């Protein structure tokens, strides 16, 4: 089972303020994301758990994986709750 961006999401990244915004039909609330939050949302696509997301981000941006794991885990849970991320039906 891997994560994927929910199919009913719209999102935009208007110029200027460094923020991105996303909305799912299921969630019904607009979320503003910092650039880092957007990176996590994107990095989660196709990953199976928070550890692999954190590992991917650590490898790509030189962050300390252990240091970011808790925050990544919590944030992914928020994304799922907001309807912005969902589990695909295919097992890996």
């Amino acid at each position, binding site marked *: 089972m891997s994560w994927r961006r929910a199919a*009913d999401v719209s*999102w935009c990244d208007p110029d200027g303020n460094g923020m991105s915004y996303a909305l799912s039909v299921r969630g*019904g*609330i*607009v*979320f503003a994301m*910092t650039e880092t939050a957007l990176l996590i949302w994107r990095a989660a696509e196709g990953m199976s758990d928070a550890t692999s997301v954190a590992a991917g981000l650590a490898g790509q941006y030189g962050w300390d994986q252990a240091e970011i794991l808790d*925050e990544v885990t919590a944030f992914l849970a928020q994304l799922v709750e907001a309807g912005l991320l969902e589990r695909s039906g295919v097992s890996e």
Partner: protein
Amino acid sequence: MTWQSTDVPLQVRVELTHGYLQHVADEVGADVLHVKGKSVHPLLSEAGDPRNRLSVDVDVLVRPAHVGRLVARLEELQWQRVTGFAEGSAFGHAMNLRHHHLGLLDLHRRWPGFGLPPATAFDRLWEHRETQEIAHVSCPVPSLTDQRIVLLLHFARTGSERQADFVTSWVNAGPADRSAVRRRVGQLDAEVSFAAAVDELDEFRDRPDYVLWRHFSEGSVNRWDEWHGRWSAARGIREKGAVARGFLAVNPDLLREKVGGEPTRADYLRAYADRLVTAVGNLRQGVRRR
């Protein structure tokens, strides 16, 4: 790595709601054309960028047969009706819905100015549709020529309020584009409304909807002129009956908005009295002008 969900700019909410609405339409199998605002073709936007168009709401035109299912789903998703079709305007063309977080949605079942039956007009627009990516969602929009007409008819209906739409859709259009627009206007039976937009209305003095389009294109606020126009434009006894009922009736949706809750009997009585006073005043004005 923080995130927030507050202070979302209006233009962002509008952009996202276009995409949201398209997802909902796809879910229930409703054909929807996104019009105006963020959905306009870059050529028709000021400075060539749809993001420069400031919108306070989202406008969509829905295939009439699909309106019921779309509205039902939106209501499940906590959208609330502000005004219904019948009460919303002289044309009975749109209903307004509001979402406490996302804002306002103008849901059109027809576009004022097309003389064709609404389902036929929608079919004609749908056949030539294109797509515009809004908030990373593919949204169906009318063709460029049809968008010019949609904006021009809106320009005529709103008393020439949005001069920029007239400029981008007509003044800046080249000869080939103008010819295409005129041909298409004929196919959509929109000659009178289009004439109101481009200042050629006097050529249509003998048409039943002439008075109504003159009223709107002049930006008149005289309600008597509007009702006179509506009466003239109504075809057949049923349509004229509906106009007469509308003239006398108080709009419960608007009254609810005005009093901020369920209107009482006294609220209705006051509203009827106000309506009568306004109608008499407008009638006097109208008589004096003639």
